[in-house]
């Protein structure tokens, strides 16, 4: 009888010790792994810390699986990310820890080629629209407050945002004869002059002469291939005509898409290029559909 009593007392002590130990040990949730600048949520550019914290929670819920626990673009998912055509890609690095040597480079901005950062509107545009052909979905249903919070959080991840002045976007009008035949013809001629070096000639199937740019992530095996878009087989990241226009006019930061090379083109000529690219997209789609129907 006495033995049983001692045994149960001992078991009780062990249980109490386990409970106390579990309470003393700090739980390590993935949230703890999200490294913020200065290890703490900080207010940035007049944003309240509450807003940034809300953005952080949204980031953990919706962005972390692809953009990484440390917001450096290394996905949590073991198999990594791939584009629709099967190329491995990495999500945007918000901290500048990895491939761009301390910089953050956003590609779809009115800043364009020389710039690093993006205006709030550019960031929200990409979050809302998503990037076609990549795993980035368009979060159309997000409320304006949630978008504000996410943007505030993204801007708390790199100190450079503090001095960043967002340029005001120029006024652009989509011409009414976009997709007209004469525009497509003009665009084809311009494409042959200005674009084939990097993009290749999609209609004759001639590959690009230039090598694709590579970004290496230090400490990992990840390589980011920045290849020029194949307009026939791959969707445009942002298919909107205004976005295509902006990409050609302003270039893409962090890549060799430097608009100085075609600075002499007028806006009207660039709209012709937009028309031609839209034409190529439609051609690619029809070809693919035809191939699928034949199967």
């Amino acid at each position, binding site marked *: 009888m006495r033995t049983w009593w001692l045994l149960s007392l001992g078991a009780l002590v062990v249980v109490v010790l386990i409970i106390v130990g579990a309470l003393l040990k700090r739980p390590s949730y993935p949230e703890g792994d999200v490294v913020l600048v200065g290890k703490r949520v900080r207010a940035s550019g007049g944003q309240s810390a509450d807003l940034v914290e809300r953005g952080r929670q949204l980031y953990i819920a919706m962005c972390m699986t692809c953009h990484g626990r440390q917001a450096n673009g290394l996905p949590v998912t073991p198999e990594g990310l791939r584009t629709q055509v099967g190329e491995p890609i990495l999500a945007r690095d918000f901290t500048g820890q990895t491939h761009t040597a301390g910089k953050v480079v956003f590609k779809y901005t009115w800043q364009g080629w020389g710039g690093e950062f993006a205006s709030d509107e550019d960031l929200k545009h990409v979050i809302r629209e998503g990037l076609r052909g990549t795993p980035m979905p368009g979060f159309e249903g997000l409320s304006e407050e949630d978008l504000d919070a996410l943007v505030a959080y993204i801007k708390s991840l790199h100190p450079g945002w503090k001095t960043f002045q967002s340029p005001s*976007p120029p*006024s*652009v009008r989509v011409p009414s004869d976009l997709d007209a035949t004469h525009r497509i013809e003009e665009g084809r001629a311009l494409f042959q002059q200005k674009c084939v070096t990097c993009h290749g000639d999609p209609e004759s199937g001639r590959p690009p002469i230039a090598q694709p740019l590579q970004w290496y992530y230090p400490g990992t095996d990840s390589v980011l291939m920045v290849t020029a878009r194949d307009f026939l087989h791959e969707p*445009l990241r942002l298919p*909107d005509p*205004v976005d295509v226009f902006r990409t050609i006019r302003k270039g893409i930061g962090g890549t060799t898409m430097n608009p100085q090379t075609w600075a002499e083109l007028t806006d009207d000529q660039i709209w012709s290029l937009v028309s031609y690219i839209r034409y190529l997209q439609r051609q690619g789609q029809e070809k693919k*559909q035809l191939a699928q129907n034949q199967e």
Partner: protein
Amino acid sequence: MRPDLAEGSEVGWLVDTAIDIVTIGIIVVGVLSFIIFIYALIRYRRTRQPFALREAPVWLRRIVYLDIAVLLFDLTLLSFNLYAWHEIMIDADDQYLLRKAQEEGAGFVRVQVVGRQFFWAFIYPGADQTFGTTDDYTTGNIMIVPENSYVVVDLTAKDVLHSFFIPEFRVKYDAIPGQRTRVWFKTTEPGTYEIACAELCGDKHYDMRAVLRVVSQEEWEAWVARRSNGVPGIVSGTLHAFGGGEHRQKSFSSSLSHSGSVSVQELSAN
């Protein structure tokens, strides 16, 4: 309490009836069992029955009828559930649904759904109805489907188990990494419903919530046209036509008045 069944959910009543059969049956069986149990406790208490009976009393031997009742209940439940399973899962293959949609003049929509920690991605085939072409598009945490349509959901997950759950349509199915599963439902009226994750998938599981928006046929066509880059004449101004909110409504009307041209100020106002 369970939420009200969505208007026009074709097979939701099967799920509800199965749940009702189980609930009522279990209440009946449970109450009967407890009555016998409590009666036996009182009737054969120690002061009245100091020694164990060598064999069961006569009334207790008749309890086998209760077993038969339970067996009948089980058979009812099993047969009904097999019928429901057949209606929802086995019979309703794509050909069947497509034929049914054509007979009823209803739409037929395919969406690929990918569960990720911790959001739902919805992949649409675009205007050409073919997955893998350049006009595919992906939305996050919002699923948009037209009214009066059969919606076939191709379900998978990228990291861990998730479960695609639309309470109002009584749709719940596991999203399994590396596997494709398939569920379907039918919409009738426009409306907004909740999509949840019904499988504990991590510490933000509670936040893995999406919106199902059933829109009218015109809205759906406008949305597909805008989302599919191949359609000429659709510009960004029409983007957020049904994103809700006064802000977006304004930019929609202004883009209409420009008839196919839109300024960037309006775009950025979006």
